[in-house]
């Protein structure tokens, strides 16, 4: 049986004796009998050797693909070695939220550095210390925009469906009406947005690159929203921001997104990282923890959790969000990643991912039945094609060759390429597709 309790049997007896007790059972006398449980139906405990074998056995039952051409919200990128070594340091891993600044400068400074990097990436003024994931970041971003007379949210239909679902959950319970815009050839039409905007619209959520990989006409969408007095929450892929125009440059009010591509493994969906940044005017509406710079009594630079009066532990039922624990270690991961690759490296990740996606789209277009769905649209590193055979069947045939194909979406396939999908991998994929379709 495994245990992490240091006290020996003798020591336990001595401790009990100090309390005038003879068994630990007596410590639970206050629990009424009806609420007591005397044995749980759990398996017997295991030694470390046994448990490692058992859990490794579960890991082995998963299929690890050699080539991954699937994204749709979770992206396989190269993770620099230093990212893993730094973020597995026990000091960082085993610390709690840095309430005691004097012995938490390491965590606090790393979050301050993260906040700066997120501001630089998004072109925004202020970032928080993270929220649970990109979908929750979008939901919290929308709720930040609520005004007494404006409480409606307009959601682009081109946003990731899981993001939309989370935004809808969060809005429903708050009594916030949500309007979803139609999808117009893989993008959001400014006319559709104008028609949906009203005096009650608090904000518009648009994601670019969107679910289909398409880059939205953000300039026009932001202008339309602002004309109607609504704010814009823009979802962005952080890798794309190494190259593409920032939410800040587009004039968005709040930038949010999924930070997983910045050094976090796929991990079957988590832990991931929701990043959130906004313009200065909205600073005090930003949910969650924020680290600020100050000095100590001797004038030394110091970092602390600040603007805490926004938060649940002070404001209780009047707090704008209930978040306390966030994804601090994932924020540090993103920060180490961004420092490791630097501005040129991040740009290269973005360029290579986009280049690979465009190469693959071109190659697939030469295979009968794999036409690009949204031909006139510019895209980043994802794109939707038709599929002349059953997409699930195609994917399972690809899986036999160690390839995770595009995600079956709307009768076609949503493909994704990152810097890890080399030319050889893509050529192999296309050859395999030709073979499967020929059968």
């Amino acid at each position, binding site marked *: 049986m495994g245990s992490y309790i240091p006290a020996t049997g003798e020591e336990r007896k001595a401790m009990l004796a100090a309390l005038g007790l003879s068994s630990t059972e007596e410590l639970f006398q*206050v629990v009424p009998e009806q609420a007591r449980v005397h044995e749980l139906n759990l398996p017997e405990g295991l030694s470390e050797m046994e448990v490692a074998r058992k859990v490794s056995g579960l890991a082995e039952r998963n299929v690890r693909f050699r080539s991954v051409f699937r994204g749709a919200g*979770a992206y396989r990128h190269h993770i620099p070695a230093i990212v893993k070594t730094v973020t597995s340091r026990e000091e960082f891993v085993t610390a709690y939220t840095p309430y005691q600044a004097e012995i938490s400068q390491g965590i606090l400074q790393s979050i301050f550095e993260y906040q*700066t990097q997120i501001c630089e990436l998004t072109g925004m003024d202020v970032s928080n210390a993270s929220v649970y994931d990109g979908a929750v970041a979008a939901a919290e971003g929308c709720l930040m925009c609520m005004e007494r007379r404006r409480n409606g949210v307009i959601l682009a239909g081109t946003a990731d469906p899981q993001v939309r679902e989370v935004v809808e959950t969060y809005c429903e319970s708050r009594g916030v009406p949500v309007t979803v815009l139609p999808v117009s050839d893989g993008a959001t039409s400014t006319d559709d947005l104008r028609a949906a905007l009203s005096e009650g619209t608090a904000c518009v959520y648009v994601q670019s690159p969107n679910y289909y990989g398409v880059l939205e006409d953000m300039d026009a969408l932001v202008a339309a929203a602002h004309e109607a007095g609504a704010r814009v929450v823009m979802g962005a892929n952080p890798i794309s921001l190494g190259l593409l125009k920032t939410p800040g440059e587009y004039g968005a009010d709040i930038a949010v997104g999924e930070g997983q591509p910045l050094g976090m493994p796929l991990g*079957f*969906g988590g832990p991931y990282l929701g990043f959130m940044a906004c313009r200065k005017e909205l600073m005090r509406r930003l949910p969650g923890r924020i680290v600020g710079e100050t000095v100590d009594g001797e004038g030394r630079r110091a970092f602390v959790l600040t603007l805490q009066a926004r938060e649940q532990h002070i404001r209780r039922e009047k707090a704008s969000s209930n978040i306390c*624990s966030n994804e601090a270690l994932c924020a540090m991961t993103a920060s180490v990643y961004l420092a490791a690759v*630097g501005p040129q490296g991040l740009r290269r990740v973005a360029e290579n991912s986009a280049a690979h996606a465009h190469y693959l789209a071109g190659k697939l277009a030469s295979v009968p039945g794999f036409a690009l769905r949204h031909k006139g649209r510019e895209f980043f590193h994802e794109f939707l094609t038709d599929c002349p055979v059953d997409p699930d069947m195609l994917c399972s045939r690809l899986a036999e060759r160690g390839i995770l194909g595009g995600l079956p979406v709307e009768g076609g396939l949503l493909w994704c390429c990152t810097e890890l999908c080399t030319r050889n991998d893509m050529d192999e994929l296309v050859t395999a597709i030709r073979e499967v379709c020929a059968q």
Partner: protein
Amino acid sequence: MKLLFERSRPGRCESIIPPCDVEQAQFSPSLLRAAAPRLPEIAEVDLGRHYTELASQTHGVNKGFYPLGSCTMKYNPRVNEEMAALPGFTDIHPLQPAETAQGCLEVLYETERLLCEITGMDGMTMQPAAGAHGEYTGLLLIRRYHLSRGDTARTKIIVPDSAHGTNPASATMAGFTVVSVPSNAEGGVDIEALRKAVGPDTAGLMLTNPNTVGLFDPAILDITRIVHEAGGLCYYDGANLNAVMGHARPGDMGFDCVHLNLHKTFSTPHGGGGPGCGPAGCKAFLEPFLPGPRVRKEESRFTFFQPEKSMGRVRSFCGNFLVAVKALTYILTLGREGIPEASAMAVLNANYLMKKLAGHYDMAYDTLCMHEFVMSLEKQKNELGVSAMDVAKSLLDYGIHPPTMYFPLIVHEALMVEPTETESPETLDDAAEAFLSILEQARTDAAHLHGAPHHCPIGRPDEVRAARTPVLRYDFGQK
């Protein structure tokens, strides 16, 4: 110490990403950013040293005693970390076909099953990413339940005044209004006040048990019955389940839904503020409202399914999956005997340390505690001018993380101490000595305590300045 940005030198190149092997994609110039982000440019050796220095300024459980009440800073076993880092988990795409991710689905299924057994619940979702997120999910279960019965009048959630701030904040997010009920002299729920508070507008009650003063409410069965008789549901905040797991189950106390903090009770590390994992569980009648997808077992295969009246998603994919792997590893390690042993020792350690301090420090409640206890420095504050803050900051110089300060709000000058089961008697003895030396110093040299800490990388930071003139990012030398 320097910031990453202050170590940056233009042109220090990395060699992590190779040149592109195909033609570059062409974007319209209007889609490109005007200037590169000012990310640091640092040689790998200096980057490594930067974080080594940051690590030296960070106190974690692996560095020293961490009796932070309510936060359960128990040891985080290394094997958990090793299991969660297996490529067979980290390389799995969340949208892989379920037949290629059977190991992941089994992890979710098994973790859910074991946690249901420990809590006395019937179903659970692993989607919530932290405790507060789990609270929100649990409250939405209550909301959906009442609405599904066409009962729109139940808009109020009852929360004791000793509750953690997330409880009322979560209730507001879930669309409820909050009714606060006072605590009685013993720190438990004031039953008469509860009777008066319940009615046809009661959606439910949120309760932590053991509560935030570290006491098990002996009237728990009456409490849940009163709420049920009024037509409300009972929500169990699992923040303190670590005190009773294996001895008492929320499901048997009369609770209808729960959330757990895997990063407290089930030993997964806190990472300086997350990632956590806050599964929300419920009795069978609430299962149809859970977020989807959930996992079920059909013969020997695991598949996803969507609950019929699902509230919708609260997070993408299946939550912080790798944290669930760590918790599963922990539960399998401890097993049937180890789970109740862990909670029994958590309670024994707390009582042992409390006994050592009682008579010197005033205990807020003079009785056996569960996994944590609350002291009040009110007397010292009045007589010696030494506050809970001064004692807490002085502990830093002993290499001990201070207890939780000024919480719960119902105790003045509170210090809340939670030693956890993974500390040895000698660690507790040393900590008790530190507490007593500080008290001694409070009598002889209070000024020294006001200036504490004296041996940390920084002294007390100026929080007023931080909040009045917020500096929330590096300015690259451009004020």
